[in-house]
């Protein structure tokens, strides 16, 4: 209540105050770090000159990759949108039996990396190779990115709009498309954008499915040339693709207002009765869970039990698991620390400077791991030999790649903290750094935890940047799984996949719990 009054009195919190110099400088440094990969690719493409660029880009292979990549992004995004929204609607808005079970199952595929999923499928049937299989398997891996945000909106949506539409004579379908869908649009588009970016960056799954895209081609080039010109030029095209997606999403999302004044009456929507359709809906949901979660887990179990190359070198598995956990924690810690200045400025000092600083970290985060790694390895070998082939460089790459995850969570948490608390602390004699450390940070701990869990999950399953940047003699669960499974030693690969899922599970559980708490509050 008190916050609401304060907000009414001071609608533009802190906007006219001067930027605190230390935090501004920190945020600028972080933004600069995250823009290194983009800058590297741009400078390289310009320095190569148009003639060389044309030679490297205007060749049949690039056309083929462009067709493959755009077809996959289009089909994968569409399929994920339909599957994710459909599943969310069935779970949240219908009389589907077993709702708690489905709620847990539908988000669970996030804990199974796409490259583990595709290897599971490939080891059983070659029929999944090529375009159709690539769309199928990436959709099964990535639809939760649409399902989760859409679920959240459906839960918070006021049922009055739908009821009004029905009383005005619209049928259920018409109501869905004209009333529900427009309200879902920002969440749906945001989810689809994430799917698109993941598809552009996906390496392991597509390599296994023999479906070449820009990312797999860049990796092939890397294996044949290290940091050759062709690889960086392909990276340029890929970067362009990412930026197109970002801009496209912004334009599609538009400025239509979906929020409204006042919270409305807290009321649960009356679920649509499925009636005779119930068995079909149950069958569809079971099929989705079975394909996305059941198939990879059953196959993984089978590899563990009957794989001809199955071995449990306990010492090695333990060491590599600890390495992965270490990188995950270090990555999460560094990313969260680096996100603090930008997130704080964007909440407490709204203006174009803070917006640019915050947004620039999103651009870097949308670039595929292979591009970031290529930039870092080339720059380190040429200009910063001290960090070359060290864990520091790899963790820095993780921070650049996964900054948006920490930034989004931290921003949301900071926005909930009334600035009056800062003022009171200052009035009581605390220094600005003391306020941040002793007042603000403890209050955003939960948001920080969510961000850290998201980064940890991403680091543990990261493949391409790790392959390129890991210090000599260092393997992670992801790279060890990859090196075994790409020579089809599924049994030997299986324990590493299992450990990846096991150490991801606590973070995934934390996130589900947090999102449920969020929904409870809304």
């Amino acid at each position, binding site marked *: 209540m008190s916050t609401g009054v304060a907000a009414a009195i001071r609608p533009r919190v802190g906007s006219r105050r001067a930027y605190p110099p230390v935090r501004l400088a920190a945020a600028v440094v972080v933004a600069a770090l995250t823009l290194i990969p983009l800058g590297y690719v741009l400078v390289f493409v310009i320095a190569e000159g148009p003639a060389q660029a044309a030679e490297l880009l205007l060749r049949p292979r690039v056309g083929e990759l462009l067709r493959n990549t755009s077809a996959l992004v289009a089909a994968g995004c569409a399929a994920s949108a339909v599957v994710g929204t459909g599943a969310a609607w069935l779970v949240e808005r219908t009389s589907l039996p077993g709702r708690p079970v489905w709620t847990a199952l539908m988000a669970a595929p996030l804990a199974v990396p796409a490259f583990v999923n595709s290897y599971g499928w490939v080891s059983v049937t070659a029929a999944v190779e090529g375009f159709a299989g690539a769309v199928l398997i990436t959709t099964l891996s990535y639809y939760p990115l649409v399902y989760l945000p859409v679920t959240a909106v459906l839960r918070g949506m006021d049922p009055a709009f739908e009821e009004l539409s029905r009383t005005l004579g619209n049928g259920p379908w018409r109501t869905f498309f004209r009333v529900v869908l427009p309200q879902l649009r920002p969440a749906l588009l945001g989810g689809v954008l994430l799917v698109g970016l993941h598809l552009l960056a996906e390496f392991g799954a597509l390599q296994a499915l023999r479906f070449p895209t820009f990312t797999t081609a860049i990796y092939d080039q890397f*294996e044949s040339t290290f940091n050759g010109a062709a690889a960086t030029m392909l990276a340029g095209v890929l970067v362009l693709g990412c930026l197109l997606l970002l801009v496209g999403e912004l334009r599609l999302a538009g400025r239509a207002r979906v929020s409204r004044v006042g919270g409305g009456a807290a009321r649960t929507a009356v679920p649509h009765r499925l009636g005779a359709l119930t068995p079909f809906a149950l069958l569809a949901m079971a099929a989705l869970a079975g394909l996305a979660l059941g198939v990879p887990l059953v196959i993984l179990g089978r590899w563990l039990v009957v794989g001809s190359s199955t071995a449990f070198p306990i010492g090695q598995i333990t060491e590599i698991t600890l390495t992965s956990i270490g990188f995950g924690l270090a990555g999460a810690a560094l990313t969260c620390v680096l996100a603090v200045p930008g997130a704080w400025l964007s909440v407490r000092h709204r203006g174009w400077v803070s917006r640019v600083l915050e947004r620039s970290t999103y651009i870097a985060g949308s670039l595929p791991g292979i591009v970031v790694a290529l930039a870092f390895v*080339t720059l380190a070998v040429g200009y910063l030999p001290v960090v070359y082939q060290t864990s520091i460089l790899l963790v820095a790459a993780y921070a650049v790649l996964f900054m948006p995850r920490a930034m989004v969570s931290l921003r949301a948490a900071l926005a909930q903290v009334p600035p009056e608390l800062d003022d009171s602390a200052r009035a009581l004699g605390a220094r600005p750094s003391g306020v941040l450390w002793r007042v603000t940070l403890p209050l955003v701990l939960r948001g920080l935890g969510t961000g850290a869990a998201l980064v940890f999950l991403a680091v543990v399953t990261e493949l391409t940047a790790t392959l390129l940047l890991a210090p000599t003699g260092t393997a992670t669960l992801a790279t060890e799984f990859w090196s075994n499974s790409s020579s089809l030693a599924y049994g030997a690969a299986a324990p590493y996949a299992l450990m990846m899922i096991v150490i991801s599970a606590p973070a995934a559980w934390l996130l589900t719990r947090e999102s449920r708490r969020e929904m409870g509050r809304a």
Partner: protein
Amino acid sequence: MWRSRLGAVRTGRTRIRTIVASVAAITLAATLGACGSASGSSEPTITLYNAQHKELGREWVDGFTKETGIKVEVRDGKDFELANQILAEGDASPADVFLTENSPAMSLLSSKGVLAPLDAATIAQVPARYRSGAEDWVGIAARSTVLVYNPSLLPADQLPNSIMELSQPQWKDRIGIAAGGADFQAIVSAVYAVNGDAAAGEWLAGLKQNARVYQGNIPIMNAVNAGEIPAGVIYHYYWYRDRAESGQDSKNTELKYFGDKDAGAFVSVSGGGVLRSAKHPAEAQRFIAYLTSKSGQQVLAESYALEYPVGSDVPANKALKPLSELDPPAIDPNTLNGSKVISEMQRVGLL
């Protein structure tokens, strides 16, 4: 409300401390664990850039450490990736020794002058046809090109007589290759060396039309075995390894050796060399001397690798078709031009 917020502040602070402390502790433990294995010996540790198969590389490293006490840190990668990485790193390269699966990456380094001359005794352990004329790298193993085929899809009387036939239209979608791998790229360089640029360029363009590209030799063999594709170009040892284990992924397949000095009978030489910029040149020279010695080559012959030994007169595994019966084209392994092959493969769109 204020009280609860302040309460949150207080418990939050202790929680921050606990979290920070435990993150730091676990990170430290993991880092120490990773570093711990490297220290604790008076002998220096040499760094090996290993493009050979990971398992074979480990067996050699273990044998070498057992014999000399010198420890070896290994960075795994692919032939041209690591060769170009060494070139990009220049004098600052951490690598002391470099092992490849095929010779073109070695000859690339040889042509750039970054390899040190090898000890005369090491060179004497390897016959001239399996080493660099510049005496800056030696063969450590050899492998033969073969056509793996599924007799139920490709009867013996329809087999090609030369690898060059695979660019003809009747092979459309019937041949598997691993275009991204150094193995296949070495085979292409042999086609260029044997048949000349014009014929080889045409062949490559035809292959782009015909071939289905796989991720590696094993996926090709599996696909042929499963009847997804009638034939594929691989090296011999993948097939023999599978036969030696269970035969599960090769039971429906046979091997065709082209012989007759055809480019398809190319015997590829895996190379080993010491970097001019090596921090531990003496130990690095000992490593290559060991690999080509009787005990090093014996490790290869007795391992599951099933590649051909090339040094110190160590005989190959008896299951293999003898090296002397392969009738390969006579090619100086140090003349194979890897960079040209890569740009040619980029031109036709295989890369």
